[in-house]
């Protein structure tokens, strides 16, 4: 039961750092502190869902009935390279340029 795995909510600074890392968000020390307090309060509020018995209830991921949206795989003109690269902070040789991935 969900009730067993979610105790009264406190999101520790360590948990905040873990989630921020998953989300690739650099947070300052004061942001982490505020995030811990505010997210704990929000999670405390949303925890009222745990009191509902949803055994046998299917999840809704879309309100629309599932249906096929397949189309013929035919090539058609898209945006040109120059247009696509125009908003990039750095490009080189018709590609997006980024710093090294590895140290």
């Amino acid at each position: 039961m969900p009730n067993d795995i979610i105790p009264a909510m406190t999101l520790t600074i360590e948990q905040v750092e873990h989630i921020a890392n998953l989300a690739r968000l650099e947070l300052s020390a004061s942001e982490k502190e505020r995030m811990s307090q505010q997210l704990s309060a929000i999670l405390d509020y949303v925890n009222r869902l745990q009191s509902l018995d949803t055994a046998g209830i299917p999840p809704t991921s879309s309100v629309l009935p599932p249906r096929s949206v397949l189309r013929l795989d035919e090539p058609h003109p898209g945006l040109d390279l120059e247009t696509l690269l125009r908003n990039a902070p750095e490009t080189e040789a018709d590609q997006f340029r980024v710093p090294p991935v590895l140290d």
Partner: protein
Amino acid sequence: MSTLTELSLSEVTTGLRHGNFSSRELAQAYLERIERLDPTLHTFLTLTPELALVQADQADQLLSDWRKNGGAAPSPLLGIPLAVKDILCVAGVRCTCGSRILENFIPPYNATSVARLRQAGMIILGKTNTDEFAMGSSTENSAYGVTHNPWDLSRVPGGSSGGSAAAVAAGLAPLALGTDTGGSVRQPASLCGVTGLKPTYGRVSRYGLVAFGSSLDVVGVFGHSAADAALVFAQMAGQDTLDATSVELPIPEFQPDASTEPSLHGLRVGVPGEYFITGMQPEVEAAIHQAITILEELGAVIQPVSLPHTQYALPVYYLIAPAEASANLARYDGVRYGPRQPAEVMWDVFRHTRGELFGPEVKRRIMLGTYALSAGYYDAYYGQAQKVRTLIKRDFDQAFTQVNLIATPATPNTAFRIGEHADDPLSMYLEDIFTLPANLAGVPGIAFPVGFDSKGLPIGMQLTAASFQEDLLFRAAHAYQQATDWHTRRPSLNQS
């Protein structure tokens, strides 16, 4: 020519067709009014006067050709100005989404909704203010400053489409596009005293709408009346090969002039007790009951109806929407668009760009969504929220077997003061408590003014209908607006 901005939409359409004034003169009148009033209101983030005048000249040419050669009547939207929320792409015009992370983004294509309205000949005046990535209920989360409510400059216009709602309320645009993920059209419409439509999920293409919560996002419209909103809706609705969730279904035509006497005979209107909560502003509650009485006088049958899971809509929404947002906003990493925070390695570019350029509410929702989706918590949070979403949708399905429409307040309170909810995100979230359920169920809703409180602030009623029955919303709201004149009231801004 400033009086052109005071004409009703049908008067403008007639005037353009007869050649009493040109689309250029109309656009100029709005641009002049914007120049005069928007430094105070801050409804626009980007103005496009050159583009507007070029488009107006094209419309004038079409109108003059038609007057000369006859043929089928042009679209009633030909030559009519439009404001567009700055989260919908207009080709070649900066689209910030209210965020510094897109401060210099120029989309190379039009949103389908925008393209279809351009096809009808509408003129684009500019892009309106929004909470960052549509996350908020006041426009206070915009990185570019708050929009002021035209009825009281010390108050918010609502949000997230607050710029569009305030622009229409202040007469800076006759029509404006918004988007509604949890109430972002209906709540600001209510707070600004204009009519705002949230169509059924899937009815209007989301192509070119910068994604927030993809299972909830809908493009909507603001106008001074239900009849005005219906014109824009009919033009932009319909299936689009560029959005796999857009639905191929006929769009029932709404013709406001079909009958001379608007009647709601044969319509059943449900009133859910769950929407009349302790703590809501008593004047709002009274005005809604008064408006329901008018619907009854117009011939509707009023009956109680129950939506028993209403109290769970807020917690469900604040798990599902942030979860979808945390995935959608992963694309802002300083690689393909936006400014980049420099760093030695790519992972640090991601972290610093996102940490530096996203605002507090966006970071909060990314964190919340990431947590709800993370290993060990997915089933208890996201999974449970999706199941309760099913229960909320079933509430509506069940209710719409008994009634055609559901009447509720659009918001529990009238417009709140700028800064009133600062530093308390949960209290801000509660402002959307009556609009969130329709997004979770996918059903259409319309908000429109039904009175004013003692402070002179507009009060909005919300009607919801079963999926794809927008025509019922138009019919009922139009009948109400034929019988009352709340929607014709305008804030007194001319002296300011």
